[in-house]
């Protein structure tokens, strides 16, 4: 416990947070991160490995780890679990066929002990696509109500493509995460 509390103290001073961004392939993780950072999103290849973006928000420094979601590399997600403060799960709201997969992978992730303290934000991305499920419907599919009571979670719809709604949701993530952080280590 000694070392852990020291690390926590250091972290509190720095107000640095580590946010892990995962989800199935094609859900738009990289696009969201680039959009948050105000970068060009017109050419994005499927992520082979991971990207890290450091974003300053108010008095916080957010390290966003965007890890590729292809099936082959999902098994490497575990390498990023250590010291994760916030977990962002991105869903392609228009990919109805793979929602089962999506639920399965999320359930597996939440079983992970090293992520037990991390708050969970679910981004129901691609809301701009006609026929996409609403965040409420996604919440129902993923059976979020049944989640462990000890976990803070929230679901937000967004569109990294159009950006309009996306920017609102981005603000929400950060506020949400920051608030959570504040509560935990005040």
């Amino acid at each position: 416990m000694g070392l852990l509390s020291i690390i926590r103290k250091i972290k509190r001073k720095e107000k640095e947070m580590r946010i892990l961004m995962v989800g199935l392939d094609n859900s738009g993780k990289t696009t969201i991160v680039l959009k948050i950072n105000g970068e060009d999103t017109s050419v994005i290849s499927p992520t082979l490995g991971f990207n890290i973006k450091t974003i300053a928000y108010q008095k916080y420094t957010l390290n966003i780890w965007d890890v590729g979601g292809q099936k082959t590399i999902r098994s490497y997600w575990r390498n990023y679990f250590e010291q994760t403060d916030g977990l962002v799960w991105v869903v392609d709201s228009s990919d109805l066929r793979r929602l089962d997969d999506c639920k399965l992978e999320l359930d597996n992730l939440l079983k992970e002990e090293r992520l037990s303290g991390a708050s969970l934000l679910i981004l129901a991305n691609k809301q701009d696509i006609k026929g996409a499920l609403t965040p409420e419907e996604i919440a129902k599919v993923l059976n979020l109500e049944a989640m462990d009571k000890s976990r803070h979670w929230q679901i937000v719809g967004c569109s990294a493509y159009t950006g309009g709604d996306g920017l609102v949701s981005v603000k929400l993530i950060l506020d949400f995460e920051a608030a959570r952080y504040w509560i935990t280590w005040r």
Partner: protein
Amino acid sequence: MEDETEKQKKHLAMVERLSKRPQSRSTKPESSTESTSSVLSHFSQLKTSIEFQLQQSQSLSSDPPNLKLHCQNISESISDLEKLVAQNSYLLPSYDVRTSLKIVSDLRQSLQNLTNQLIPKTRFSFKNKPTKKVPKDTAIPQPKQPPQPSIPDTRLATRESPGFRNKVGEVLVAEFRGSEVGEFAVSDLDSCEVRIIGSVRALFVHRLKNCRVYVGPVTGSVLIEEAEGCVFVMASHQIRIHSARKSDFYLRVRSKPIIEDSNGVRFAPYCLSYPGIEEDLRGAGLDTETGNWENVDDFRWLRAVQSPNWSVLPESERVGIVDVSNLKNADEEI
């Protein structure tokens, strides 16, 4: 004299110290073996109680809410058991740790089997909203039916996106000129030809065999899963190809196309034509050739040398420009 007493004191102290040493030495290992066996016996106690609980649950099968609670309890006890092993892992011999963990995972598995067997899985799907047509001539209002949680969940139909599904040997044409189209799905087709003229936001392709798929610009991404013996001609911002075999892809992509669990796939540049395609391509930001059609990332082949799973389609084997504006014409082309 004082020195003498001092010396004696020291000597006594030393003797005492020495006399204690063998004791502490002998007690230590004993205590550890003791605790090892006590941990193991505790473990086996918990194990038998969980096994008993598991057996009991069969009798509860007629009482779903209780059964669920019961299963939760069992799951908690299994977690406790695992914790016990984890806490004592430093003093248990590694063999015991291994076997204990094996037992824990076996118990988990049998609990899983049991719940699968006894508790019907609630699969997600969409409810057809009950039409609120109350028959007017019934004088007595129907008493409200108590909700039956498990039944409706299983029979609901999944909402489907627009698309072509479950067809054999057909020519399927979709035209989206000037209309706002979201996602489009093409799935479970055998020996079909699919033409999508105009622009869509997202395209999902699933389980195609011996098909030819011609697609106008996709402004979002294309996801292809399970294709065999197919020809795809498509332009998109992102293309992901999973589990494809012996298929040819004529692509224009803004980013690198990727393949995963695929083999025998070949790539060539985009070659589709229909009146107004230039405008559609421009609108989608796909009017210039990026050359990315040959920058394929194989997620199953993360090495510097060329992946054996894909290749560039030799120019001599490529089809010419495919014009999908005329049905008969295009059939002759390939």
